[in-house]
């Protein structure tokens, strides 16, 4: 296994993490490292523990044992919002949007370091408004990227399932992440848009050097964009390697029995 201190390009170092919910163990002794500016996909059957893993990495659930290092700093016991502030940002399976904020507000809410988020900001309206203008511009740019511009000032609650996914993704980007954890961002999005999103993600990786860790059910979708694929089943990593090697892996075929037969 790589050592996080030696290889300075390691952004995330996960060491033997487990979680135990009163006997249910969705993640068991999982270890892996992620290098900066890479694109890794996590695949696995339903209930494999993929979302649970993200919950641990993002601090939404706490590990029962093990350690997580982000940029060399142990984060397994700090608050979720602090982890996000450090640049490790996640999205949710099934896209959580704030229904009673407008689409643009959903995005603007996510901006990092907004002086207006602080109550004292109330007394410096100039700085607050200047920031607000910038935030709005960025939000509009992000919405344009995913084709939601015309919904900017509608309540997010009116968006369709697929549109909510797009909003969720754009919103995570507003938080200025250095590493993004995306939980099934393509599920329920139409194939043409999936293609477009893949292009957007590839561009983000290149232009903003964002590191990606992404959960996806369908290996084919992420074959081309991924540098590496991690396969989970029953709370454990059962395979980890180049996309092609995973494609050929027997264990994976076992775990996926149903779905792979259909695909091939």
């Amino acid at each position, binding site marked *: 296994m790589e050592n996080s201190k030696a290889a300075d390009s390691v952004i995330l170092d996960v060491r033997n993490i487990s979680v135990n919910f009163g006997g249910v163990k969705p993640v068991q002794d999982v270890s892996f490292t992620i290098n900066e500016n890479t694109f890794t996909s996590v695949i696995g059957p339903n209930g494999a523990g993929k979302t649970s893993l993200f919950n641990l990495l*993002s601090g*939404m659930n706490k590990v029962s044992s093990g350690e997580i290092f982000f940029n060399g700093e142990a984060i397994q016991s700090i*608050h*979720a*919002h*602090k982890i*996000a*502030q450090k640049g490790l*940002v*996640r*999205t*949710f399976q099934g896209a*959580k*949007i*704030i*229904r*009673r*904020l407008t689409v643009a*507000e*959903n995005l*603007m*809410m*996510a*901006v*990092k370091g*907004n002086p*207006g*988020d*602080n*109550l004292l*900001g*109330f007394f410096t309206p100039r700085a*607050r408004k200047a*920031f*607000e203008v910038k*935030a709005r511009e960025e939000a509009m740019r992000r919405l344009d990227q995913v084709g939601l511009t015309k919904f900017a000032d509608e*309540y997010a*609650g*009116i968006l369709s399932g697929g549109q909510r996914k797009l909003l969720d993704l754009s*919103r*995570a980007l*507003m*938080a200025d992440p250095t590493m993004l954890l995306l939980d099934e961002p393509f599920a329920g999005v139409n194939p043409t848009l999936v293609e477009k999103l893949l292009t957007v993600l590839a561009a983000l990786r290149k232009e903003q050097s964002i590191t990606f860790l992404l959960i996806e059910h369908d290996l084919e979708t992420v074959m081309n964009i991924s540098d590496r694929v991690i396969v989970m089943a029953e709370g454990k990593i059962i395979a980890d390697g180049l996309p092609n090697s995973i494609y050929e892996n027997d264990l994976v075929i076992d775990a996926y029995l149903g779905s792979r037969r259909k695909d091939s």
Partner: protein
Amino acid sequence: MEAFLQPGFWVFVLALAGMYGIFSLGLQIQYGVGGIMNFGHVGMMAVSGYTIAVLVITYQWSFWWAALVGVILAALLGALLGLTTLRLSGDYFAIASIAFAEIVRYWILNTDSVTGGTQGSLAIPSPNGFGGYTDQPDVILNWISDRLYPIIGEEASRDLSMVLVVWPFFLLFIWISSRLQKTSWARVLRATREDDDVPRSLGKNVFRFRLQTLIIGSVFGGIAGVFWALQFALLAPEDFLRIVTFYGWMILILAGSTRVKGLFVAAIFFGFLYGATRFLEFWPLSLLSSPERAYLRVFLIGFVIVLLMVKRPQGLFGKRQEMVLE
């Protein structure tokens, strides 16, 4: 019926409306923006009111400093409530907040040597044997009535002076609160109203936002307590029953919790319902005894709320669209 034609009646309605309006401003920011269901708001009012009475009567403080300390204590009480129970989920917090206000009231009731217990502020120990605390502000209220007397004669009452004092504050607070609700701070708070995980995942400290909101609301509750103490010049533990919190909620539901600007109309409407029930002496209501008619008030107001919930869930001024999004 003639009672409704008397200017004095409407002055009383407005005085109540201003006071309860400020009270419900606290609930509005807590619930309407932050989604925090506080059913113990009356506790903040009790604390500031009694702080004034005790500091002025027993310790001979100036009313103004006592009022300031009263509001600060209400804010601290809000902070204490938040720090101890705000991590509970919504429903549990609501229950805990009721208990919190009841503790405050029981403490007042049972600490006779400080608060006067059941006998109220009249029995607060005083070095000069007199239990009043409004001398200083009364100078101002009297000054106002004296100016008005030449113009309107006998109608220049203390209540009218109160209206003229309370309402500018009420309108100012509405303005401040509506400004606050346009900031990005409030935007994050609105997000926390629907979901904890999203703001957390984006680096927002949800607990901090909620706690701040609870404290701001408590300040409004505390200020309402100052005006309450001033209006009635007398305090008793039964002034701060749970029902008072629900009066505040009624105004909020009438107005539509998400829009602060409609609050003053709803407050007047509430003041009218509250004041009017005292005068419902015509047949067949005249068959009821006066305590029974007082219950009628609660019944009537409850009825109006149920009617609104069914017919206009967004309140008189809210946007319906906001209520139906899924």
